[in-house]
């Protein structure tokens, strides 16, 4: 049992790449669900919008990196928000849930379809679109940084990720202090009351969906840059629920909730993952109970279980307050 490796990976989960990607996605979900009460089960598609916006701009259309940023952060997520929001935001909450989860499935089918290979690279996805990003890296690709946790290029992704994450947290904090943020909370608490005060609830919900989607797209784009590939497999439906667990675990409707949640979640997931892998490799784990390929499935089971238990027993998460909880008393 390689305890050094286990501790290193756990620590990496707490602050590393996965924490950044899913922290951003969870902040977006917080905008949707925590503050506005929207049930977005398709955050993975917003992440994919960021990833494919950049990679298709550079690898398929041959535009430069900066146009890729515009496409991935602004154009794709806004189009997506319009597609998912316009039909559903006037309706009861579960219709948005159905349409967003259907959008994830549509993304999967379209992105994997061999007939669109020319545009999306189908199952293999797209690569070689992030060179400009790494050209700016001040770090030596050969050296390890931050207590030896990250090699040069990773360090650059993580550093940019931390900066983006901090800026987004600051933005959410300022937005929620503004009158605009109070309208969102009012819609979450009682949409009819907000409407009777002359607020256009539909339009506010639309804005919240789009802004949260942009945050998700940032997470997805960083993920594509960090792994240097945009693949359908990285943005399957179940990915959304990693962000959901991060959000509910940390506490919805708190500015820092999703960030803390993502850190704790990935600490736990990385710990179990490496621990189980070590157990299998060392032969501690009986083979009929778990094999190497089955280890990867355990984290999805944990996500499912975490959603069940949190929703049933602690909807406010670790740091949230029960008063501000869209999960409760509806």
């Amino acid at each position, binding site marked *: 049992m390689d305890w050094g490796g286990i501790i290193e990976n756990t620590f990496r989960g707490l602050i590393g790449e996965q924490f950044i990607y899913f922290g951003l996605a969870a902040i977006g979900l917080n905008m949707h669900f925590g503050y506005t009460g929207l049930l977005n089960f398709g955050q993975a598609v917003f992440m994919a919008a960021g990833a494919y916006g950049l990679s298709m701009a550079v690898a398929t259309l041959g535009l430069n990196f900066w146009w890729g940023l515009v496409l991935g952060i602004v154009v794709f997520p806004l189009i997506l928000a319009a597609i998912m929001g316009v039909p559903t935001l006037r309706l009861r909450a579960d219709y948005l*849930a159905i349409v967003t989860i*259907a959008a994830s*499935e549509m993304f999967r089918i379209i992105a994997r*379809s061999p007939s669109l290979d020319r545009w999306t690279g189908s199952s293999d996805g797209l690569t070689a679109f992030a060179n400009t990003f790494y050209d700016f890296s001040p770090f030596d690709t050969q050296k390890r940084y931050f207590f030896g946790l990250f090699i040069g290029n990773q360090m650059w992704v993580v550093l940019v990720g931390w900066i983006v994450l901090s800026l987004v947290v600051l933005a959410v904090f300022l937005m929620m202090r503004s009158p605009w943020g109070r309208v969102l909370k009012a819609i979450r608490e009682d949409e009819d009351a907000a409407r009777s005060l002359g607020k256009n609830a539909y339009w506010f919900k639309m804005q919240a969906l789009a802004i949260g989607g942009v945050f998700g797209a940032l997470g997805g784009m960083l993920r594509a840059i960090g792994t240097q590939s945009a693949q359908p497999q990285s943005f399957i439906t*179940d990915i959304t629920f990693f962000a959901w667990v991060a959000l509910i675990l940390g506490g919805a409707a708190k500015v820092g909730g999703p960030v803390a949640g993502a850190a704790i979640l990935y600490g736990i997931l990385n710990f179990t993952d490496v621990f189980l892998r070590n157990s299998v490799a060392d032969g501690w784990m009986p083979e009929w109970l778990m094999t190497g390929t089955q280890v990867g499935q355990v984290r999805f089971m944990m996500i499912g279980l975490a*959603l069940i238990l949190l929703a049933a027993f602690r909807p406010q998460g670790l740091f949230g307050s029960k008063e501000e909880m869209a999960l409760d008393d*509806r």
Partner: protein
Amino acid sequence: MSHRPVSKQRVNPVTSVLRTVVAAVVAVLAIAALAPSVASAQSDDAEVKGRLQARDAEGERVGVGGVEFIASDLSGNEIARGVSDEEGNWSIQLPPGTYDVLLNVDTLPDGRELRNPDKNPAQVRLIEGDSKSALFPLGEAQASTSSEIEIVQLTVDGLKLGLIIAMCAIGLSLIYGTTGLTNFAHGEAVTFGAVMAYLLNVTGIFGLRIHLLIAAPLVIVISGCAGWLFNRFVWFPMRRRGASLISALVMSIGFSIFFRYVILYQFGGRAKRLTDYQLQTAWDLGWFRLLPKDLVIMVLSIVVLLGVGIALQTTRVGKAMRAVADNRDLAESSGIDVERVIRWVWVTGTALAGFGGVLFATTESINWEMGFRILLLMFAGVTLGGLGTAYGALFGSISVGLFVQLSTLVIPTDMKNVGALLMLVVILLVRPQGLLGRKERVG
């Protein structure tokens, strides 16, 4: 919107016995699932082998089983035969020499044909200890030339798909109607049915394989029990605590993921097939071709759906279901035991979904994600018909089945489900209450 706490139930002696029986059944099935399969190792001088694969409707590679391979020497005398297994693997043990390996085209399943028919038979030379592969790439059969015939064929296929979706979706719609829960875990009830059928039919219990005709009713019973358990130990306590519908919905998503990955963990990621009724020759009826099993499936589902319709219309519990779905408070105040009705809805809904899973497994293959895919088609169907209405679910699902199949006339086959999901978005845009739903504010 939250439900009032429900009065405490009397503990029924029958229920506790039933609970024990169910627990025993579950334990037995778990043991059967864990029992390792015995692989037989053969040895001969040399072998020729291969893996016969084709792309399914999703564009994924699946094995093609039950196809016969014949090895003959160069003067045409047959030496040995082999048949591909469910994953498409086949091998023939042979003494060293040169052989013609022929794929018996008559044994190919319907709709599959060789991409290079002139490379069949393939010649292989084997020396001692050799293990050589012979490749037979498969392609889609050429679509029939006349487009009217194609439309009729696709309509028949779509009707079959729609009937199965309808069977699965009635439970989804009734559960929504009576409890207000959008149950995202309903797709896993379909997968559960299919996997149970596989356990009974292919894995077998203590080495005893049960014929599909007996396995199917068993699966219906097991699924019904599972639905009862799910309601009794998860949703009933949640209702009693007065949990919000949103947290129930998030929980159902959690269950969907959890069950799906437990099934993947146990069942593996590869698509599998049942043993019975796999190899059938299609009847050519001029306008369209139909496998005998598909006819049986369509007739069976029509019978079951009619039965459900009649039960909803005439029996006490059926009427009570519609009453609760229509107006829960009114139903309760007129003396209907709402919890009993909900229990019935869970049992029948899950049993029907399980049966739908068996039918799916019979026509296509079993796969750990199948239920989730079907769930989205169910949502499309149920929304089209009107969420919460049983007849709406029926009508909407059949429309979705037809739409999915007929859309392949325009869009590539691997993207056919996209059409149905887009339709879902369009319906919500123009008529959110569905075609048969009541016009009321759904926001």
